Structures are given as structure tokens and as C-alpha cells.
């Protein structure tokens, strides 16, 4: 059974751990650099990206996370996508720079603009529409080389596969559908 770390500095890491377990993996919480050893992949959950960045700095996790991402698969949702992108807007902030992606924070607006919607026409092997829960979500403004857009909403990419890595601007961990977590698990060990 693959072992997937879930970055547990802040955010909805428990929801991800539950989804990973239902999808057939073992999930472990990661708060320190040494906890990155022995895991096959990592999930960076939803939450506040500024809060997670601070906690990475407090515990010297920034470089170890970046090094991990250069070698093994990482799946980021919402704040996780912001932290993995090469470029962050609104405001500009540091990131792990794992993906050639430009992401704008809180791009739909405030909480009143959060929403649940159905994504049809996705490229996730056919099947029914994907439910997408957007919470103070970012918008992907640019997808660089190597990114395959799997789903879009209002013309903007919301689920992008980079081969080794996967990012979503919404929260598949808050829906019952496991297809996106399963897609990530398929990347492990390749």
C-alpha cells in the first residue's frame, strides 16, 4: 500500500487523509522535515498559504519540501496549488516553485463568492461530472509547458496534471468522489 504524507501545518489535512485512505493509500501527517522520509508522495492541503509558509519557515521545512517535490509526486489543492506554483499574484508571495504555473490568490473574491459547482467536459477518463468545492479559491492565470488541463471552470483551468505532480484550485477532499485522489495515487512509484 502506498504511503502518502499530508502536510499538516494548518488546513484541511484530515479531510485529505480520509480521502487518501478511502482511495487505498496509507496517510501520514507531516509537520517536520524528517517525516518526509519514507513517504511515496505528498499532499499539500487547503488552508491559508501565508500561514503554511510561516510555519515552513519556523521549522526549516521550505527547502526539504522543495527537494522532495523535485524527486517525488506532490498533489496541491487550493493553498497547496498556490504554494507549488512558480509565480503567485495578489499579493506576490514566495512559493516552492515546483510547477510552471501562475496563480492569483482569492481571485473570485471573498467567502461570499465561494461555491460548489459541477465540472462537465473534464478529461478524467470520461465518467460523470466532477463536483468542485471552491473556497476563497485562486485562479490559474497561466499554465506553462508540461501542464495538461484536465478540467476548467468559466474558461480557467482548475485541475492540471503535470505528469509528476497534480494541482486543483478546488477541494476534491471535501467531495465524496475519489477519482482525483486516485489519479494522484497512480503517479506514485512511477
Amino acid at each position, binding site marked *: 500500500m502506498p504511503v502518502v504524507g499530508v502536510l499538516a501545518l494548518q488546513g484541511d489535512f484530515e479531510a485529505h487523509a480520509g480521502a487518501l485512505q478511502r482511495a487505498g493509500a496509507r496517510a501520514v501527517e507531516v509537520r517536520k522535515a524528517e517525516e518526509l522520509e519514507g513517504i511515496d508522495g505528498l499532499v499539500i492541503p*487547503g488552508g491559508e498559504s501565508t500561514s503554511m509558509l510561516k510555519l515552513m519557515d519556523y521549522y526549516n521545512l521550505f527547502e526539504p519540501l522543495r527537494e522532495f517535490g523535485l524527486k517525488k509526486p506532490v498533489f496541491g489543492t487550493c493553498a497547496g496549488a498556490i504554494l507549488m506554483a512558480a509565480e503567485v499574484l495578489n499579493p506576490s508571495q514566495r512559493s516552492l516553485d515546483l510547477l510552471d504555473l501562475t496563480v492569483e490568490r482569492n481571485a473570485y473574491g471573498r*467567502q461570499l463568492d465561494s*461555491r460548489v459547482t459541477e465540472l462537465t467536459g473534464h478529461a478524467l477518463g470520461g465518467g460523470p461530472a466532477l463536483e468542485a*468545492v471552491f473556497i*476563497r479559491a485562486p485562479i490559474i492565470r497561466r499554465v506553462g509547458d508540461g501542464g495538461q488541463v484536465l478540467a476548467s471552470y468559466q474558461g480557467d483551468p482548475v485541475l492540471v496534471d503535470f505528469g509528476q505532480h497534480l494541482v486543483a484550485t478546488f*477541494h476534491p477532499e471535501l467531495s465524496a468522489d475519489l477519482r482525483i485522489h486516485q489519479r494522484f495515487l497512480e503517479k506514485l512509484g512511477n
Partner: protein
Amino acid sequence: MSNMYLDEGFRVKVGLAEMLKGGVIMDVTDAKQAEIAEKAGACAVMALERVPADIRKEGGVARMAAISKIREIMASTSIPVMAKVRIGHFAEARVLEALEVDYIDESEVLTPADEEHHIWKRDFKVPFVCGCRNLGEALRRIAEGAAMIRTKGEAGSGNIVEAVRHMRTIVKEMKQITVLGQEELVAESKRLQAPLELVEYVHKHGKLPVPNFSAGGIATPADAALARLLGAEAVFVGSGIFKSSDPEKRAKAIVKANTHYNDPKGVLEASEELGDAMPGLDVRQMDESQLLQTRGW
């Protein structure tokens, strides 16, 4: 469960509470404090006019903060901004919804506007957090539409004892419900003065249908760790930060201890070189009329 708890609007409200889990929500009174909070790693800020310790000291009627203050705080930070309204004051809540704050706290820290009714929160699109001292109170607030619960503690006291009492109470009451038989739940619902369907939810899952945070009296990194170890999924810190001798250091220390709450060495490291905590109050020596936690039901 009726449809309300599964409907998209409610799931979006609970969704933001899910994102705040494992974090620290800090009371701030201006843009400068909001920047300190964000820089320390707060996951959200609570905009208010005076921190609870000052409300306690100065007395008078405590109301929703001035709109200019809340706007200033919203403009100064990229993290979610919450603001407080008086219990039952749905017109204040409508104003905050129009202002587009991210969460409303219907709070006992402000002077109640209605001693009989809380706000009917289901009519709002903006999510609400409400305080509680026990399970019945939590379930009544959820029935009204609260998408996040926080135990009340005793705000502005710098004393963790009431926060501990309330968290222990609600966790114990939830555990007890899980071992009851189905036929006992109606009587339990009557005892708790809470809707049966919510009692059934707790019976089945052993937890609330919304996130459960802790507030009221957290003043040190170890206080935050204690709240988390007792079952809180995140913490609110009010006077504890900006009434201490070095707010920047203390804010950072509480954020660190809150993430590593289950690692004694992590809490130890967070507790070093802190300066003085806010002065505390012995709740047992306080007059009943000075207690904030008894506001609301």
C-alpha cells in the same frame, strides 16, 4: 439529516471552517495588528473595536466594530476576516454581510441585543460561528445555521479554566451519546433541548456536523496546546496576544505551539523567551454579572 446540512450553501460555509482547522484566529483592532497577526502565521483575524479584556475593564455597551475599522482591516490582509455582532442583532449581521466579511461571530463578548433569540443564521449567505458551553447549546446554534462552533471559555480573563471546562463538557457529552441506544435519543434530545436529528448525527459520528474550535482565555503557547489536546480543532486567541508584553513574539509562539500541540518539545521551543503574558483574572472570584459566558443560551 435533513437537507440543510447537505445543501451546497451550507457546505460552502462549513468549507471555510475546514480550511481554518489547525490554525490560530487572532482578535485585532486595527490594520497594524492585522499585519502582525498575518505575519505571525494566523489563519484568520477577528476584527473588533476593543479586545475582550478592555471591554471588561471599560464597561458600557459593546457593539459591532466601526465599519471604517473593519474595512481597514479587510484591506490590510489577504487572510479571512471575521467580525462580531451582538447576540440576536440580525441587522448588524446584515450590515456585515453587505460589507462581505468572511465569517460572522455572533458573540457573547458583545452586549446581547436579544436575550431570548439568537440570529436565524440560515437566512444568510455569509457563514456564522457561535459560542457554546455544552453540547445542547452547540446543537441549538447549529440548528439555527451556525457553520462553526467555538467553546466560549471566559473571554478577556487570560484564564484557561472555563475553556477547559466547556471543551471537556462537550467532548464528554458527545462520547456519552455514542453509547446510547436508538430508543434513548429522543429523551436525550429533550434533555439537551436540541433537535433530534442533530442528536442522531452525534450518536452516529461522535462529533459535531461542523468544526469545533476553542476560545476564551488562551494566553500562552501551552494553553493553545491544551485546548487542542482536549479536542479543539483550532483556537481563537483574543486579548492573550495584544495584551501581552510582546505581541509579535507571543503571536508567533502560539502559532507554533498550535501546530505542534502534540509534541512536547515543539511546545517547549515555542514557550522560550516570551515576555510576560497578559494579566489574568481568577474566574472564581468574579461576580456572576461580570461573566460573559452566561450570555446567550
